[in-house]
C-alpha cells in the first residue's frame, strides 16, 4: 500500500469527479448551460497529456545517458498514453464544440495545434516501426521524442495566445478564472486535473509492465 497509495487516490478522486462533477451546482451561463460540466473531463485531458509527455521526454533523456531497454519501454508507453489522452481530449472537445459553437470542428488555433501535435506523435510511432534493430530504434526514437516535444509544446502554449481563439483565455477572451470558474467549480476541477493525470501515469505504468514482461518472455524463448 505504501507504494500504491496514489492509485487509491486516483480511484477516489475520479469517483468524486464523476459524482460531484455531474451533480454539484454549476453557474448558469448562456449557451454553455449544463455542458460546462465537460470542463472536468475535457481540460484535465490536456493537463494529463502534457505531464505524461513530459515524463516520456524525461525517460528519453535518461535513455540517452544510460541506454537500457527498460527506459526505452517507459518512454514509449508514456508517449502512447499521451497520444491516448490527446485523442480523448480532442473527442470530448469536439462534442463540446458541437453543442456550444455549433460545429464538430472549428478553425481554432487550439484545435489545429492539438491535431498537429497528434500528427507529430503519430510520426513518432511510424518512426519506431521503421527500424528493425532494437538499439537503433530506441536511440533514434528517443532523439525524435525530445525534438518533437520541443517543437510541439509551442503549439499548445505559445501560438494560441498570439491569435484569436474561441477558447477562453486567448485572443482577448477572458480566461475561465475571470467569469465562470467559481469556487464551487474549483472544488471539482482541481481534483479532476490530479485524478486524470494520475490515471495517465497508471495507464503508462501498466502498459510498461506488460511490455517488460513480453520482453522477458521473448528473451527466455531466445535463450
Amino acid at each position, binding site marked *: 500500500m505504501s507504494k500504491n497509495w496514489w492509485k487509491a487516490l486516483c480511484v477516489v478522486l475520479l469517483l468524486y469527479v464523476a459524482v460531484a462533477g455531474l451533480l454539484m451546482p454549476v453557474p448558469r451561463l448562456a449557451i454553455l448551460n449544463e455542458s460546462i460540466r465537460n470542463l472536468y473531463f475535457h481540460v484535465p485531458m490536456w493537463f494529463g497529456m502534457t505531464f505524461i509527455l513530459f515524463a516520456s521526454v524525461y525517460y528519453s533523456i535518461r535513455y*540517452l545517458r544510460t541506454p537500457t531497454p527498460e527506459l526505452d519501454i517507459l518512454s514509449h508507453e508514456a508517449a502512447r498514453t499521451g497520444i491516448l489522452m490527446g485523442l480523448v481530449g480532442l473527442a470530448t472537445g469536439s462534442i463540446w464544440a458541437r453543442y456550444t459553437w455549433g460545429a464538430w470542428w472549428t478553425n481554432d*488555433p487550439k484545435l489545429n*495545434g492539438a491535431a*498537429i*501535435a497528434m*500528427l*507529430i506523435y503519430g*510520426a513518432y510511432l*511510424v*518512426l519506431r516501426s*521503421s*527500424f*528493425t534493430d532494437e538499439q*537503433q530504434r530506441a*536511440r*533514434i526514437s*528517443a*532523439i*525524435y521524442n*525530445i*525534438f*518533437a516535444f*520541443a*517543437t*510541439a509544446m*509551442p*503549439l499548445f502554449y*505559445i*501560438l494560441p495566445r*498570439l*491569435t484569436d481563439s474561441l477558447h477562453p483565455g486567448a485572443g482577448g477572451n477572458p480566461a475561465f478564472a475571470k467569469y465562470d470558474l467559481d469556487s464551487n467549480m474549483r472544488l471539482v476541477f482541481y481534483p479532476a486535473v490530479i485524478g486524470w493525470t494520475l490515471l495517465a501515469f497508471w495507464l503508462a505504468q501498466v502498459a510498461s509492465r506488460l511490455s517488460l514482461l513480453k520482453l522477458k518472455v521473448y528473451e527466455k524463448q531466445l535463450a
Partner: protein
Amino acid sequence: MTLLSEIWVLIQKDFRLEWRQRAALNGMLLYVGSTVFVCYLSFSLRGGQLPAPAWNALFWIVLLFSAVNAVAKGFLQESRGRMLYYYTVVRPQAVILAKIGYNALLLLGLALIGFALYAIVLGNPVQNTPLFVGNVVLGAVGFASTLTLVSGIAAKATNSSTLMAVLGFPLMVPMLLLLIKVSKNALDGLEFEASQSSLLTLVALNMIVAAVSYLLFPFLWRS
C-alpha cells in the same frame, strides 16, 4: 581547431561539393522553377490576379516542398565512410551546425530565386518588402534547422523518403503558421510593430530548435 573554424571549413566543403556536382543544384533550381510555373499555369486558367491570401499560401507551400527536397539529401548523400572520417577529425556539434548553416544559405538562395520567379509570373502584391524579405530569411533558417536534424534521423531508417515528409511536415507547422501570418502582414503593408511579437516568437522558436539539434546530434551520430 576551434568550433567556429571547423564549422567554416565544413560549410566551405559543402559548397565546393555542391558546385562540383552541379546536377543537384540545377535540379533544385528547376524544381522551384517548374513548381512556380505549374502554379502559374493552374491559376491563370481563371484569368486575372491571385487574391493576396492565396498568393501567400501558395508561395509558402512552394517553399516548403522545395525545402524538404533540398534538405533531404543533406545527410542521405553522405556515405557511411565519409561520416566515419568526419568522426575522426571534427566534433559532432560542428557537423550539425555547419549543415544547418549550409542548408540555411542554400534555402535562402532558393527562396529568393523562387520569390523572383513567382513575382514575375504571378505578380508581386508585397507592399512592405524589407519585412517580407526578413521573414523569408527567418523562414529559411527555421526550415533548415528543423529539417537538418529530421533528415539525419530519416537517413538512419529504411524508408527515409517517406519518413522525411511524415516527420518533417508536422514539426514545421508552428513555424509555418507564424511565417504565413507575418508575410500576410507584409503583403498588406502593415507597420513593423504589427508583426513584432510574431517575429520575436519566430526567432525564439528557431533558437529552441537549433539548440535542441545541437544537443541531440552527438547521440544521433554514434550509430
